[in-house]
């Protein structure tokens, strides 16, 4: 489930670009117990990186406080039609996923 699908939308405004990313991730806190009473180990996204045309514009460190299947939305200054936006995450198990889109 960790490396499930991702989805991203980027829409251009005047002088900015709004980006919304959906990620599939269990985001386990390490506090929850399963049906058998065993603790479900921590499993969460640690790093989130956004690149605009190959250049890193955002590097976020997040933790288990973020919900399962997170939605991450942000506004980029500037941006133009045809710009390439890449978003990738890395979790505490070393698993990762990435998605890219072109601003339309």
């Amino acid at each position, binding site marked *: *489930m960790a490396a499930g699908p*991702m989805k991203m939308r980027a829409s251009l405004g005047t002088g900015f670009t709004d980006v*919304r990313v*959906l990620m*599939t991730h269990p985001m386990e806190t390490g506090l929850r117990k399963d049906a058998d009473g065993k603790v479900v180990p921590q499993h969460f996204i640690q790093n989130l990186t956004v690149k605009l045309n190959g250049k890193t514009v955002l590097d976020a460190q997040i933790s288990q406080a973020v*919900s399962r*299947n997170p*939605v991450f939305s942000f506004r980029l200054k500037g941006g133009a039609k045809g710009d390439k936006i890449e978003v990738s995450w890395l979790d505490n198990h070393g698993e990762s996923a990435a998605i890219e889109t072109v601003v339309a």
Partner: protein
Amino acid sequence: MKALAFGAALALSCAAYGQDVAKEIQRYRQMVAEGSPAELFELEGEELWKKPQGPKNVSLQRCDLGEGPGVLKAAYAHLPRYFKDADRVMDLESRLLHCMSTLQGRSREEATARVFGSADRPSEFELLSIYIAGQSRGVKIEPGLSQPKEKASYELGRALYFHRVGAWDFSCASCHGDEGKRIRMQELPVLYKPEAARPVIATWPAYRVSTSQLVTLQWRMNDCYRQMRTGPGNKR
């Protein structure tokens, strides 16, 4: 006098607080509508729709949901409806089950072994439902009402809505029968009024943030019946 003024001020601030909460809930719903994890499940549902399965090892892509074999556009918005080949009115889930048995050659027991899933593993019906419902975005919900069997189903549904059952003697109308009722912060729509029902029904299947789970309209009905204590047999 001072106490009275204080009381009035308190009442005012409470009213303002209630409004703020309602507004925040509205804002939250807006956000969920704009970027819901449900869209991730749509992608998985699409994969499942195209995946060959069952003894005949075929996909569901030729399944006729009422708009013709394999036509998904607007299909969900026009369900439930009458299907001639099965000679009965079917909703999305029962039609999918029909296709699983006729197209894929699967048994009812096997296909329905797990109708409601979990956050870790959504069920086949949940994934397929969200994908198919997603193909009806912007289409007006208009279930079939022209065939005699559709009319009979409609009348039966209306009777069930007001029929009181179970240990607590509840009907659907016990909660969804009067304007202005709510459970905690959750407003209870008067579902026998089309103008109230339409916007609510249109939000299903839904992603529940509180449980990180994808749930279908069948789940909603089933869980209402469970809360009404209608008896055993409701799957959780």
